[in-house]
């Protein structure tokens, strides 16, 4: 699903990612861990082509995204769902519209949109909140909406950058359980986090980054 080959990303003189080599297979659940500034977010941004590598390859679904034309980027991102730490919901739109707006832009019929949004909200456990506004929801609920938006188009890959960073431990566990459920349905899930409790609890593949380098890659691993 994702391959990094000798990937380097430099910001000026500083190497945010330093000769990273990785292979994440279809259907895997992977934790990317490391301290702040270790290169987790940079790696994520390379995968969804928000950044281009300074050197090396970033292959997603068989395509080297570094060589991808700008016009192709939306098509790449439609094949993945992205979840952010700060949820990034539109405050003036209700939950239904927040989840639906991407598939609306793809030209799906209203019936199909309703069906998909309903399904996505059911997966994240918010079937009754379709007409609530983000301001009326708790942090955990907002993150669930954000996950629903990420999966509504049925992407084969889900990327979550510190999805529990703004949440309390109990809510964090609930969010991670939702991501695990999504993974069990066949979606590859990559979670960048520095939450030890979460990583240790789920015992998935753990890739540890330090100063831009992959220093550890263990199946059923723990933090550190």
């Amino acid at each position, binding site marked *: 699903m994702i391959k990094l080959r000798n990937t380097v990303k430099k910001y000026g003189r500083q190497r945010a990612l330093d000769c990273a080599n990785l292979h994440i297979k279809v259907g895997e659940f992977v934790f990317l861990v490391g301290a702040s500034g270790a290169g987790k977010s940079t790696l994520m941004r390379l995968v*969804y082509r*928000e950044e281009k590598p300074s050197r090396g390859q970033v292959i997603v679904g068989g395509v080297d995204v570094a060589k991808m034309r700008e*016009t192709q*980027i*939306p*098509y*790449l*991102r*439609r*094949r*993945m769902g*992205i979840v*952010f730490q700060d949820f*990034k919901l*539109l405050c*003036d739109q209700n939950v239904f519209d927040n989840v639906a*707006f*991407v598939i*609306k*832009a*793809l*030209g799906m*019929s209203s019936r199909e949109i309703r069906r998909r949004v309903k399904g996505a909200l059911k997966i994240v456990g918010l079937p009754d909140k379709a007409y609530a506004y983000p301001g009326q929801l708790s942090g955990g609920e907002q993150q669930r909406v954000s996950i629903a*938006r990420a999966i509504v188009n049925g992407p084969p890959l889900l990327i979550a950058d510190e999805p529990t960073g703004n949440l309390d431990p109990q809510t964090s566990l609930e969010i991670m359980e939702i991501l695990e459920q999504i993974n069990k349905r066949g979606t590859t899930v990559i979670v960048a986090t520095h939450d030890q409790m979460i990583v240790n609890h789920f015992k998935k593949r753990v890739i540890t980054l330090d100063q831009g380098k992959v220093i550890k890659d263990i199946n059923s691993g723990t933090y550190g």
Partner: protein
Amino acid sequence: MSIEVRIFFRILGETVKGIQRSKWMNLVIITTMAAILSIFSCLFRSSLFVSHFVSEIGDSIEVSVYLKPEKDPKALAKKFTDYKNIKKIKIITREEAWKEMQQQVDIPELKNPLPDTVRVKLKDKTQVKQFIEVVKKLEEVEGVQYAEQLAENISRIGHFINTAAIIIIIVLGSLTFSIINNTIHLVIESRKQEIEIMRMMGVSDWYIKAPYIFQGVFYGFCGAFLSVIPLVILNSYMYKLAKLFYITVDPANTQIVIISVLLMGIMVGAVGSVFSVKKYLKV
């Protein structure tokens, strides 16, 4: 319904949503646009009216070319037909002219002193001077008569109107362009987060950009549409003025101005917002 049509309607829906969200700003932009486009349409209409007025007066002025004795006026008239700028040629023989004069004025029995005359009307009044210079050099021509001062004034007014119209169109065009450009910039700034999310979710470039362009077109069209109101009022005054001078008003000129101002509004709206989207909305 095909996907493309559905997407088009959704883009229109996004445009409407964007306009609704702009609230009071819509009013400010549309009234400002309407005010500027009103100045444009009224000046444009006035310039067409003055041009028409000048042309009507100019139409009544002819160049009278007097021939030397024994020269053939028909031969001279034939020479004139080769000029591109000729609107009308009329030959008045010395006998006709004398007869006419005798009818108008009580003249004692005299030998006819008048020459044969060729009267010429030109299409472009600004070219009269050059025409007279050419005609004077012809060997069969005795003299040329023309209301020179009037011709010069007409030519000057014509030039002034054309120059003023071009300057005004450029200035007002730039002004409306700048207003649309800045408005769309503000709209983009206020929705930066939304644009960012759309980008991340893989919404296509043109789906994100098109509503802003349509919003600019909407402002341009509404401003232009409102600017027709003062134009209609001005038009009624022009009809009254034209009646006073016994000249006709061409209704097609009003239609030309209305169509021009609508096209200008839409075009400037579109170009202004495209420019803004290209500059400030990096997808």
